[in-house]
């Protein structure tokens, strides 16, 4: 062997196969967790139902096709490569709603985003997907409010309000990119959406919890790369 050379994988070959395997597996775990900016492997409290996951993937795929945007997550869950962006790591995040306070004609939905992502990423786009079941053949007004905590964090203030006209059963989407970006900017990790329908009969209903059409937010984010000086 050339004198004085220490190459990365050399030490490995001299070890027993079982030791080699243990070291490689430990390296693989450490490498994946560090690249995903995770302190440890996540403990999954409630996994999303496969039906809801596949429905969301299909819906996003259809939306991407409509807007001729990037090929998002396909319906079969296989993973096409994201546009290779010069080694910049991009993420697509699916956040399913957690139901909050509700009345007979309004409901609050919460969407959580992890602190790892909130700190180091910029939101490229974020879309709220709502599936409405409309009993009657007429147009129903729905008010969608995006809420955010006030400076004390004790109360919620309305960041924006939009009127949706729901005419038939199916998906409705709303661009929430700016709201999610401003939440990330404030270090908050939760987006709260309040939906309000008219009090009269036959108002549109949201697909029920546990249903495969449960509301979700699909966001595209890009890791902020540490500023690097390239010298040639």
């Amino acid at each position: 062997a050339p004198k004085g050379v220490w190459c990365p994988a050399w030490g490995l070959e001299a070890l027993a196969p079982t030791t080699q395997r243990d070291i490689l597996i430990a390296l693989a775990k450490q490498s994946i967790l560090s690249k995903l900016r995770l302190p440890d492997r996540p403990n999954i409290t409630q996994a999303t139902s496969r039906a809801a996951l596949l429905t969301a993937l299909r819906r996003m795929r259809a939306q991407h096709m409509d807007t001729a945007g990037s090929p998002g997550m396909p319906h079969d869950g296989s993973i096409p490569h994201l546009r290779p962006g010069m080694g910049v790591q991009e993420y697509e995040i699916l956040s399913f709603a957690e139901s909050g306070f509700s009345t007979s004609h309004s409901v609050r939905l919460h969407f959580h985003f992890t602190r790892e992502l909130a700190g180091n990423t910029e939101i490229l786009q974020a879309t709220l997907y709502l599936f409405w079941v409309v009993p009657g053949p007429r147009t129903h007004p729905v008010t969608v409010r995006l809420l955010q905590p006030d400076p004390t964090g004790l109360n919620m203030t309305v960041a924006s309000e939009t009127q949706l006209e729901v005419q038939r059963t199916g998906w409705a989407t709303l661009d929430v990119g700016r709201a999610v970006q401003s939440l990330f900017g404030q270090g908050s990790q939760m987006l709260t959406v309040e939906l309000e329908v008219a009090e009269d009969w036959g108002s549109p209903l949201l697909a029920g919890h546990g249903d495969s059409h449960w509301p979700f937010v699909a966001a595209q984010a890009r890791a902020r790369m540490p500023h690097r000086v390239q010298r040639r």
Partner: protein
Amino acid sequence: GVDCSGDSRMCCRKEFFVDFKEIGWEDWIIQPEGYHMNYCTGLCPLHMAGIPGLAASFHTAVLNLIKANNADAAVDSCCVPTQRRPLSLLYYDQDSNIVKTDIPDMIVDACGCT
């Protein structure tokens, strides 16, 4: 690049597959089922250093000329990745969100001598 086979001692790519089910990660990584954590190993004798096609460049050619004329000026050489590709993951994060990302340069496709 060359894949390691038998007891080859020259610079080559060694395959190593980490099965996520075997390490108990299949509950939070939805896809794929494992990670091809290939790595480079083996010797890079001086006559192999910087052979065209193996991490070659103009500087390597100049270096070879120096080596050919003056063995003492020869520098050391290591077996390193010359071609890599991203690892695509679909996984649950701590809030049970589903995240898809491509981690760049995670899978070694070819090795060569510096």
